Every structure is written in C-alpha cells, then in structure tokens.
C-alpha cells in the first residue's frame, strides 16, 4: 500500500538485483483457525476501518457473503460454505479470504513495474500503489485470485497484512478485533506451534484430517489456515489444494525473458557480422564494375 521503509525489502518487482539488506528479520504469519470462526465479520469491518476503505452498498442475494467477492476496497472477505464432507454430515465452513502473502509470490513475479510489489524481510507482500501501472499482470500471477484493480485509479489493491501496523510492533487489525481468538499473529514458527496444538485438539474431537494449510507450491504462505478437513481444502469455498504459480506465468516471466533478449541480440549481431563479412549488395556498383570489366576486356582485345 505504501512504501514503508521501516520494513526491509527482500524482493522487489521488475528488479534484476536483490534489494540491499544486511539484517535478518523474523518471518511473521497470521494463523486463521477456521474451526473457531463464528463468521461475525468483525475482521472484515476492522480491515475496512483501519485501512479506511468504504465498500459501495450492494444487494443482498440471499447468502451471507457480503460483498460477493473481494474488491479493490474489500481486502478481506468472509466466505460461507455449506458442505457435506461425508454422507449425512453437514458443516458450515467459514473462511476468511484475502492475500496469502506467499513466500514465492506470483503477483511479484508477474509485475512489470519496478517496485510496485515488494516483499518485506518478515514475509509480508505489499503493493506500492504509486509505482503500479495498472496492467493487471499481478492478477494473472496470483494462484489465489486475490488482487483487484480499482476503476477509480486503475491500480491494484489487496490485503497488506497491515504492514503499517506490523512495522510499529502491532498486530494486524483483523487479529486485534477477532472475538473468538480464531486469528492469531506472530512469528511463523510460533504460529506453526500454535497450529500443532489446535490440530491435536481437533484430532481428539474426531477431525482426523485436521491440518495446517501452508501450501509448499508457493514456498509456504504468511497467512495460514487450520482446517478441519485439510485433505479437502476445496470444501472451503474453493481454497486451492496445491496452489502454484501457473506454468504459463513461470515461462513468461522466467525463461522467456533472457532467452528472447539473447535471441534478439544474436540476430542483431548476425546482421552486424554479415555486413562486415559479405558487405552490402549494391546494384549500381556492380553495374559499374561490369562496365569496367567489359571495357577492360575490350582494351585487352585491342592490345
């Protein structure tokens, strides 16, 4: 959201060299324990309050999801799913959706604007709107379908993990406000330990498949879930089972870049070498030479 310099930057979009930083920082994480969530949306409201975002008043279409999807001014959203994980079993699963703050962020990889997306040393992935050019490549890069482009200024927005609060030692607004303690925030290591305890508890209550959602396909995330059914994350309003940066994006922003420049360089060099090795093809000059040889031949004959 803003270029906060109180957090060290480890990755910066469209930048060839690593940004400077010699310090080591603890990785942070937000843990969302879905088994404890009551769907009160306090986190959603706190996010809007802290970040001063006001969603347009929409229409009720008969579901609790409100608004229906993430928007440029709704950075976190409660998604409600009525599922039957097994026959004759019914569960209401409520997931707080928002940026997962991937260790290997697809948005950052896809972004062509230098510094428009940064990753801080603590793991938070942040959009720096002043550098955003509104191309929407971050949307193509994201395996979680998170960033949204605002029609107001054509720039991309998403959850910042309250980087401004974290920078001054506070927890994100959603964590602060959660009435059930379902959202916790701290070092990633601590959050994993905390999750272990929660999972053991869930296991003892009959949720054999309870587990931590920290997908390794994106190098792990800095927003993690405790899921009752960790074997079926899709139950939670389509949480991807094995999110990865798309192979297309990988090629486009990986191999294609140096390979194409090399190819264009070789072609230009080839033209350069051809010019000096073979030389131009000049019709008029050849004609002159023909004349010369002809007249030379004529002189030879005369002699």
């Amino acid at each position, binding site marked *: 959201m803003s270029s906060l310099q109180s957090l060290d930057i480890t990755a910066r979009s469209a*930048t060839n060299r690593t940004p400077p930083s010699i310090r080591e920082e603890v990785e942070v994480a937000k843990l969302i324990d879905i088994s404890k969530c009551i769907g009160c949306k306090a986190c959603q409201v706190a996010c809007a309050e802290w970040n001063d975002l006001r969603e347009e008043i929409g229409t009720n279409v008969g579901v609790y999801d409100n608004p229906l999807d993430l928007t440029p001014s709704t950075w976190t959203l409660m998604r409600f799913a009525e599922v039957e994980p097994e026959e004759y079993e019914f569960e209401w699963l409520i997931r707080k959706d928002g940026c997962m703050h991937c260790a290997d962020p697809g948005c950052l990889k896809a972004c*062509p604007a230098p510094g428009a997306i940064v990753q801080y040393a603590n793991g938070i992935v942040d959009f720096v709107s002043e550098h955003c050019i509104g191309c*929407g490549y971050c949307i*193509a890069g994201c395996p979680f379908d998170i960033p949204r*482009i605002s029609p107001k200024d054509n720039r991309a927005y998403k959850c910042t993990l309250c980087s401004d609060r974290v920078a001054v030692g506070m927890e994100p607004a959603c964590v602060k406000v959660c009435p059930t303690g379902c959202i916790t925030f701290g070092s990633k290591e601590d959050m994993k330990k905390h999750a272990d305890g929660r999972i053991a508890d869930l296991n003892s209550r009959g949720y054999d498949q309870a587990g931590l959602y920290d997908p390794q396909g994106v190098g792990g995330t800095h927003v993690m879930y405790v899921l009752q059914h960790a074997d079926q994350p899709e139950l939670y309003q389509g949480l991807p089972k094995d999110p990865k940066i798309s192979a297309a*994006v990988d090629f486009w922003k990986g191999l294609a870049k140096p390979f194409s420049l090399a*190819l264009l360089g070789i072609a230009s060099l080839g033209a350069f070498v051809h010019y000096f090795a073979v*030389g*131009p*093809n000049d019709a008029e000059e050849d004609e002159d030479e023909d004349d010369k040889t002809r007249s030379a031949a004529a002189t030879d004959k005369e002699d």
Partner: protein
Amino acid sequence: MSAKPKLIQRYTSSDRVNHGLLALSFILVAMSGMAFFHPSLYWLSAFFGGGEWARVLHPLLGVAMFVFFFIAMVKYWKHNLLTGNDFKWLGRLGDVMKNREENLPPIGKYNPGQKLLFWTLVVTMILLLLTGIALWQPWFAPLFPIGVVRAAAVIHVISAVVLLLGMIVHIYSAIFWIKGSTRAMLRGTVTETWARKHHPLWYEEMTSGQKK
C-alpha cells in the same frame, strides 16, 4: 556513370505513407512493449511519460499498427504467394547470403525472403491483436477467464519476439544490405539496374509495357 539512372516506380505515395505510419507505430509499440517485458528495458517507458502512460498507450498503438498492417496486407498479399522458383531460391540461401544473384532463379516483385516475412507478419500481427485484447486493462482483460489471460500473455510474448526477429532481418536487409531499397520506401522509385538485378521478372513486367 554519366547519365542519370533510369527510374521505375515501385511504390505509390499512399503505399509509402502507410508504410511510414506502420513503421512508426511499430517502433513505438515495440518500445513500450519491451518496457514491460524485461526490467532492464523499463526505462523505455520514459519515452511515453512513464510506465502508466506506456500501459495506456501500448494497446492503442498496437491497434494502430494492426490497422496500417491490415491495409498493407490487403494491398500486397497477391504478390506474396510463393511460387515454384521460390523454393529453389530458398534452397540456395547460401548464395543469397553471399550476394551471388547469378546462381539464383529469377525473382518477381518480391523475393521469397520478403514473402516469408510477409506471412510471418500476417500470423504474428493477428496473434498479437487477439492476445493483446485479452491482456488489455481495464477494458477487456476482466472479461476473460484467468487461464486465457495467462495463455494470451505467453502467446503475445512469443509472437512479439518472432515479429522483432523478422524486423531485425527486414530492417537490416532494406537499409544496410540491399542498397537502393530505402529509396523505394522513401521516394517510391528504384533504378532500372536495381530492378534488373534483384527482381528481374518484375523488371520485365514493368518494362514490357503491358502491365502498370
């Protein structure tokens, strides 16, 4: 060389204006596109007033390029159909590269290299336009499923690189290699000597007094 060389008209003024606009839009669209393609080339966006303006202008310039190309395509496609002689010519690329016309079969208005470039342009321009629409923020990209947008990005890049490779060959050949070609594009005429040497069949056609 005492007398002024005899000239043959190769391109009309409307041909030249269209080619000039095509070339200009290509240069601008290539510069803005390269700025998004590689971080080391982002500085090219400065020519457009920064990254955001480059993002706004790139698709508009791209559409302009396509329109100018489309005009050229309609005008020239007939001259660019490959003939039997063309395949023989392509089989002797070594002689082509070494400026040995005497070993090559006679060529009409365009040589097989030019024809292949033409068809490369037809394919890449159409692909660039179609995939460009799927990437065009904020107007059209949101209408496409994310898988289509990702595939479009890859095809857009590959087409652009192929087009740029074609342009390196085209620009080198026309400006540096085959002397006298630039004159055709800037002033519309070529010398008879040039025509006889590079496009003998076309030369015959032009001087036999039958066709225009």
